[in-house]
């Protein structure tokens, strides 16, 4: 790893769903302005891990997260942490595009409004710049006040990315953002991730091995809630050190 600067670290992170120990003692460092891919078979805990990073597991009854999440010099896995502010700074995009039943404009303005931006001009600027960053502006600039639900699936997902970018987060958590999309939309999203890397630290869960290989700088392989291997993406996909990793990426199981 080249960079010494880490945007986020976890130390011995555990997630329990009731009796189930879903994520076990995970310690991962996420270098700034890089893309980390989390791969592994279904149910291996990668999405659960991702959701604990912006405290989304708080919402699930019976879920318990222990261990440390270090962000900006603070352990945010702590009851005193300001969760709303944390979620503003660590944005999340979900597997299925989930635009609100509102106009394109209102989808983007939603977050900033709650964080105190009320000036119309300022909101206009945020909407435009967020849509530009998500490479959607040219496609929707003439229909900002139309329903977001009229967009295609791929456009909706880029809208959701733009919605997250509207808060100017430092970290982007992407939970299989392209798994519900067609190949062309997927390649657009991947291209976008490559561009966003310059300004954001990106953590992406993906089922698609090629996608992980194409877009990420480091890759973490999960199995049964444990971290099996964490390394540079090139290394993982060419010379994995663990047998389980090799079996998985060559398609022998999973």
């Amino acid at each position, binding site marked *: 790893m080249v960079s010494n600067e880490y945007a986020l670290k976890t130390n011995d992170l555990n997630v329990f769903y009731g009796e189930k120990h879903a994520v076990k003692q995970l310690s991962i460092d996420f270098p700034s302005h890089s893309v980390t891919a989390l791969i592994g078979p279904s149910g291996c805990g990668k999405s659960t891990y991702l959701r604990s990073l*912006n405290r*989304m597991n708080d919402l699930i009854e019976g879920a318990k997260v222990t261990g440390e999440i270090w962000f900006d010099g603070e352990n945010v896995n702590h009851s005193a942490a300001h969760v709303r502010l944390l979620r503003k700074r660590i944005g999340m995009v979900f597997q299925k595009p989930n635009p609100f039943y509102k106009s394109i404009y209102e989808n983007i303005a939603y977050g900033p409004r709650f964080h105190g931006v009320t000036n119309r001009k300022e909101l206009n600027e945020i909407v435009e710049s967020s849509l530009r960053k998500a490479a959607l502006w040219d496609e929707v600039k003439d229909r900002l006040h139309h329903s977001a639900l009229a967009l295609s699936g791929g456009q909706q997902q880029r809208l959701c990315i733009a919605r997250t970018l509207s808060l100017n987060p430092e970290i982007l958590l992407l939970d299989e953002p392209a798994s519900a999309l067609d190949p062309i939309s997927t390649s657009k999203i991947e291209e976008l991730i490559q561009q966003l890397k310059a300004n954001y630290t990106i953590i992406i869960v993906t089922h698609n091995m090629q996608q992980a290989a194409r877009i990420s700088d480091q890759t973490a392989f999960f199995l049964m809630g444990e971290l099996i291997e964490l390394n540079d993406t090139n290394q993982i996909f060419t010379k994995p050190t663990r047998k389980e990793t090799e079996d998985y990426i060559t398609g022998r199981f999973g």
Partner: protein
Amino acid sequence: MSSPTKQHDSWWKEGVGKVLTTVSASILILTTLAIIYFIASKGLATFFSNGVSLVEFLIGTEWNPEGAPGQFGALPFILGSFIVTVGSALLAAPLGIGTAIFMTEISPRIGQKVMQPVIELLVGIPSVVYGFIGLSVLIPFLRNSFGGVGFSILAGILVLTVMILPTITSLSVDAVKRVPRDLKEASLALGATRWQTIWNIIVLRSSLPGLLMAIILGMARAFGEALAVQMVIGNTTAIPKSLLSPSNTLTSGITLNMGNTIPGSAYNNALWSMGLLLLIMTLIFILLIRWISKRGQA
């Protein structure tokens, strides 16, 4: 041996099922049409045979069908019906929607274990019991608090509020439950608070058509309720001056007077006209509901 007999057999069963369901449906349609025809012919006779003016019926304030000449101003009834309906909806809608949000979003466990059975119980209580409670508890209370007789529009509104509350609540629960979980998560992931999420995502957007439908169905029930209202509203045929004045509604007007009139008389027909008005209002409620649900899908 995939046989012609087997085909014959299934054709026969198919035929019986088809006939049975078609007959059931036809009976329903015929009954409905017959009722509409009957009410319409009786209700319109007031204007065509008895020569009552439609304008007088709709906006006249004097109701004295037995006078000479008879006066047929049904506005006090119409006004009474609308005031109690709107009034009870205004009270029951926020209460019902608030309860629904509590049951689904704030405390699903209490919602499921306590509130749900309570609501089912409230639905099951016969309207005469509501009326009786209104009569023996509410009326004395209003009389002691505000003076007057106690029998009043306000009493009608309050009784109806309790009666339509379970309807509005349970339909609102369904509407709120239909909001996709990932929309709520998206809102929370943007750092919105739980209340901001409930208000902006659930109430104002995703479930708005369902909530409106709940309110309208509640209003339809209030508009059509006769017995409980009749027991507490006082049944006078004057335009009400305040919420504390006694009044009357279309339904209670019909139930109270129908037995005292001679079929075929102008008085009797005028009551049918009030029934026709109720039917038309019901139709409008149904059209509203269809319109909203169509818009909700779009």
